[in-house]
């Protein structure tokens, strides 16, 4: 929300400096977004007079001016403007001046061989308007040498504050003034006085004769037309009325419960007065015409949107009603909107013209030739406006205000202010005001205990000061009992309870007055604050990093193309790009994309991991998110070195090793896991596996990436990948810290070697498991120490050498014991087709 300092002072009587005002704005919750003074850019421009104007010797259309800017210099300016004549008083810029409307800095130069020093400016060059046909012509008595910024009264800082959605009252300058006054920055002028000032502004700029000349009916003079009761906040005007108000009505009591309107007949539309144009332009609004500018001005001044209709363009009477489904409106932004029956429109006999409370229609708006105007001042229901705006994806200044909630008690005053301004600026005769329907102005009150300010807000403000603050903000305070009854002003729709009252008091008092108070120390100091899963996640993250992997954080969403390899339950309706559309069901796509980027940057060895969620849909439609650790290894496992002279690549066992390291850290006994297939279609079918705790509980999948997937991600060279499913890892059941007692075996273990001949497709892991299970009482471990195919081994077979560790319990093994154990081992292995080598 932007406004100028002079605009603010129409409502606020204050001696405070600009910086005091802006600091206070931030302190009371109207955060200062920016401040700039349009005069700053205009400082070098001065009021100057053309002393002489001669024909340029070398160009028909150029003239040679001698310009007096009061500095004593006699500037020679080459000028092409048709109105550049001797005696004209205009605006001069010396060399070195930056010209905002043309975006260049003036230099002394030669034009057609004649020196030109400085420039006489057009309105466009000063960004006053788009007028560029001639240079600015000021009244002859404009003081030569005066800064143009001062002459044009541009020295009016523009203040930009951010208005939070609850502060609907501060969507108008008067509301901001009220807040500042409550905080001790000056006093709020009565509404009537503020309005009187506006009207007198108008008098100053717009000569009364002009208006009287075309509207003889009010020739008795302006001050007799409108009587301002400047002492009162009610009945601020006494506008002379001619005839009945327009026949308007609302058939949509839900969307538009109140529809007020007045007509003004016999107006002359045209440019609005300079003061109004300057203010509108200063805050970034383009002046359009007096009638439109007046409605904009009242909206910005009071947060009260209005709309003006050219009565000549209306057929029949205006009515607020629900749109018919499919009904179309050509809005003022030039776009056509198809409406549905939840939306409110303003229509006449021909059909809908306005999207009520959001945007007016192209067909019925007031233009330069408008003679009779109807001013609409309606109350649109905030929820209805919000829904319509969201559906149409159409935003406007009016929507912003209506959806926050305009003051339902300010319809008549808002309409009167606009009517008075129309009468002053455009002349004409006003009708009576039609008041169709009623806005929700019921008095609302909340109960409040004054100590709530300290028990919730943490600031002890004495009762008298609380009352003072609340009353300054427009609240009524009934202190007859300990529990106060506070009447909420009609413009504060957001105030619904005691906490809101606390906020009002402490924000005006200042949040800097809150003293920090330590939280009471928790009684249960020894309790862990992280869940077992969080502890596990933290541990595994650091295990992965310690084993050489670099942690990445990748987007939770992937492209549909990537999802094709992995699937996806959740597809965004409004993705920010096609690349970020499907919620991932695997961590690999993100890791693979990161791998590709790293290889593209010249990385020779890529070791990445991520801990994050995979997103699935549960049966009840809710989200089922599975915490997962993903790993990708690519490029060199070891770089070329002086010992081997070669680099080495990652192989699927590196992925297995990484998985086992991490699972071990998670407390899983990896020697007991089942190694099974079905790692997934994105893995090499012959070089991948899953590790399972039972047939159905998959803890991890790992292996070489499928060449197709590898190609899809554009990675050259082998890629090893793994995913560990953290949610499948069993968490420790007991919280006890005590461990079972430890008794080291009194006898040393014994090792025996076996060599088996077996089919090369027989999984060695199964042989090892069989051996371990052959005599659990005595066999504590079995490990492969050689695997050999070739000479001495039949084709299609391998020789597997296994070292078995035996642990005697009460007595050393006898030869008979050892033979018996060996026999068990040989029998178990034989069941899998493994034959002891002689």
């Amino acid at each position: 929300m932007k406004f100028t300092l002079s605009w603010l002072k129409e409502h606020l009587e204050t001696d405070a400096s600009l910086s005091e005002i802006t600091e206070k704005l931030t302190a009371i919750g109207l955060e200062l977004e920016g401040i700039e003074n349009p005069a700053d850019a205009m400082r070098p421009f001065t009021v100057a007079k053309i002393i002489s104007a001669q024909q340029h010797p070398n160009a028909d259309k150029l003239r040679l001016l001698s310009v007096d800017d009061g500095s004593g210099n006699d500037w020679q300016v080459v000028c092409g403007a048709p109105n550049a004549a001797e005696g004209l008083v205009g605006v001069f810029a010396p060399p070195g001046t930056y010209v905002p409307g043309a975006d260049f800095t003036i230099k002394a130069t030669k034009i057609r061989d004649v020196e030109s020093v400085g420039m006489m400016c057009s309105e466009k060059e000063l960004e006053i308007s788009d007028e560029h046909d001639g240079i600015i012509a000021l009244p002859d008595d404009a003081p030569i040498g005066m800064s143009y910024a001062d002459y044009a009264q541009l020295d009016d800082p523009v203040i930009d504050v951010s208005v939070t959605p609850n502060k609907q009252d501060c969507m108008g300058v008067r509301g901001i003034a009220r807040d500042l006054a409550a905080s001790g920055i000056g006093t709020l002028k009565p509404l009537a006085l503020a309005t009187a000032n506006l009207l007198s502004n108008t008098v100053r700029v717009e000569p009364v004769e002009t208006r009287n000349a075309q509207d003889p009916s009010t020739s008795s003079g302006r001050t007799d037309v409108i009587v301002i009761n400047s002492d009162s906040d009610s009945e601020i005007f006494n506008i002379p009325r001619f005839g009945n108000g327009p026949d308007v009505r609302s058939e949509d009591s839900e969307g538009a419960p109140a529809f007020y309107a007045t007509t003004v007949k016999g107006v002359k539309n045209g440019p609005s007065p300079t003061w109004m144009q300057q203010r509108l332009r200063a805050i970034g609004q383009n002046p359009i015409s007096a009638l439109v500018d007046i409605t904009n001005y009242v909206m910005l001044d009071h947060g009260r949107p209005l709309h003006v209709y050219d009565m000549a363009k209306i057929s029949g009477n205006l009515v607020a009603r629900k749109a018919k489904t499919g009904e179309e409106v050509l809005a003022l932004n030039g776009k056509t909107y198809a409406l549905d029956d939840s939306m409110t429109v303003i229509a006449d006999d021909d059909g809908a013209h306005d999207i009520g409370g959001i945007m007016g229609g192209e067909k019925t708006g007031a233009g330069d030739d408008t003679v009779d105007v109807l001013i609409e001042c309606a109350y649109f229901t905030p929820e209805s406006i919000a829904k319509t705006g969201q559906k149409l994806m159409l935003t406007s200044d009016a929507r912003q205000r209506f959806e926050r909630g305009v003051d339902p008690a300010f319809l008549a005053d808002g309409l009167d202010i606009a009517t008075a301004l129309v009468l002053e600026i455009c002349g004409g005769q006003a009708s009576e005001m039609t008041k169709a329907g009623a806005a929700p102005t019921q008095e609302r009150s909340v109960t409040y205990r004054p100590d709530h300010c300290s028990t919730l807000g943490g600031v002890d403000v004495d009762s008298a000061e609380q009352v003072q603050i609340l009353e300054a903000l427009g609240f009524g305070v009934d202190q007859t009992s300990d529990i106060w009854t506070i009447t909420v002003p009609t413009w504060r729709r957001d105030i619904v309870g005691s906490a809101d009252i606390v906020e009002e008091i402490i924000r005006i008092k200042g949040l800097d007055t809150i003293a920090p108070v330590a939280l009471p120390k928790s009684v249960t100091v020894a309790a862990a604050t992280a869940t077992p899963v969080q502890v596990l996640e933290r541990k595994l993250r650091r295990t992965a990093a310690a084993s050489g992997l670099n942690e990445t954080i990748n987007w939770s969403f992937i492209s549909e193309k990537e999802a094709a390899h992995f699937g996806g339950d959740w597809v965004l309706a409004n993705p920010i790009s096609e690349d970020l559309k499907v919620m991932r069901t695997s961590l690999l796509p993100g890791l693979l994309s990161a791998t590709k980027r790293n290889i593209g940057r010249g990385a020779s060895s890529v070791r990445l991991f991520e801990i994050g969620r995979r997103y699935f849909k549960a049966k009840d439609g809710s989200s089922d998110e599975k915490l997962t650790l993903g790993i990708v290894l690519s490029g060199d496992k070891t770089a070329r070195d002086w010992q081997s002279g070669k680099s080495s690549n990652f192989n699927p066992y590196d992925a297995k090793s990484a998985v086992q390291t991490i699972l071990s850290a998670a407390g899983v006994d990896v020697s007991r896991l089942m190694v099974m297939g079905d790692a997934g279609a994105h893995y090499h079918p012959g070089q991948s596996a899953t590790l399972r705790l039972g047939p159905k509980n998959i803890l991890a999948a790992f292996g070489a990436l499928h060449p197709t997937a590898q190609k899809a991600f554009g990675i050259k060279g082998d890629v090893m990948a793994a995913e560990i499913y953290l949610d499948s890892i069993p968490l420790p059941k007991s919280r006890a810290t005590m461990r079972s007692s430890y008794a080291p075996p009194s006898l040393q273990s014994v090792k025996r070697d076996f060599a088996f001949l077996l089919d090369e497709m027989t999984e060695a892991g199964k042989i090892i498991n069989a051996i371990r299970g052959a005599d659990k009482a005595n066999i504590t471990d079995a490990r492969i120490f050689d695997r050999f195919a070739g000479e001495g081994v039949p084709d299609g077979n391998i020789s597997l050498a296994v070292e078995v560790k035996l642990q005697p319990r009460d007595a050393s093994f006898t030869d008979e014991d050892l033979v018996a154990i060996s026999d068990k081992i040989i029998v178990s292995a034989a069941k899998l087709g493994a034959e002891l080598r002689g």
Partner: protein
Amino acid sequence: MSDIENIQNDYLAKVEAAADIESLDAIRVDAIGKKGEISLLLKILGKMTPEERNVQGPIINGARTMIADAIAARKEALETAALNERLASEWLDMSLPAPQSHSGSIHPVSQVMDELTEIFADLGFAVAQGPEVEDDWRNFTALNIPETHPARAMHDTFYFPDKDAQEREMLLRTHTSPVQIRTMMEVAKRTEGKGEPIRIIAPGRTYRSDSDATHTPMFHQVEGLVIDKAIHMGHLKWTLETFVRAFFERDDIELRLRPSYFPFTEPSAEVDVGFSVDKGKRIIGGDRQGKEGGENGGWMEILGSGMVNPKVIENCGLDPNEWQGFAFGCGIDRLAMLKYGMDDLRAFFDGDLRWARHYGFDAHDVPTLSGGLSGKGAAA
């Protein structure tokens, strides 16, 4: 000089001259072996008269001992020389590189999350979590942001076409605040509406459809929630001051609360932190002055906070007349950037190994309060 002495000296000279173990052993056999010269002399001692034996015995035995000792000494010397020679031949160039062990890295966001967990553990805050694919009731409605509320439009929400079993629209959570709702509802359910004190933080991923130099569609937030019977804004201010000072590891940090608006808190405050400028970089804390030209120090917004709106407490099934408290939310990525000096948010999600090595953390740098969160230990 007797004959024996001559023999003895002869052998001692030979021992001294022996060049290797083999020749030394030959000398030993010749002198004191079973049939050695000295051994044979010892054998004739028995044939002597006791008087002669008394004279010759010590001389011959003495010679034997001397020769045996000399052989032992020479043997040790030869062995030492041989070892030294072998060691000299076994020289390795120890300047050659050893096989490399690979060290990975922890992402700064994870490190900062661990730091936050540590800080708040000390204040008694548990860590809570919730789903990232949320329903619109928990993400908005329960937080007092009804469907038509302007704040809903300000959230740039990612929606799914799906609805859950309760016909709620599914979306990506726009903030970690739905974890507040989940936590309070869980407490209300477990205590059958009676309620109990709550202190949680909820770090996690959040999403908004926004992407430019300073916004990414996915980012990280941490939520804080305290519910109790007499918690007020003074506690909020203290908690935030304690948190910010602990996190940035300096005491000279000022906080400024500014009134603001969040539908789920009332009163609401945005929180600015004072910063100074040093060598062109913003440093949290200090005297809020610029040091070397350019930008001046001042205030920057780092989080939003407020007292939990009574409607939110009620929506979760707790009695707002009995329970009140505060909540805050803060961007984790931004905290990391401000503390560790990264200037590009997008790099957080790129996976660039060079960035990871530069800004990442060693696996064993677990943040602890005793070691200082960033592991620098106490000031000297």
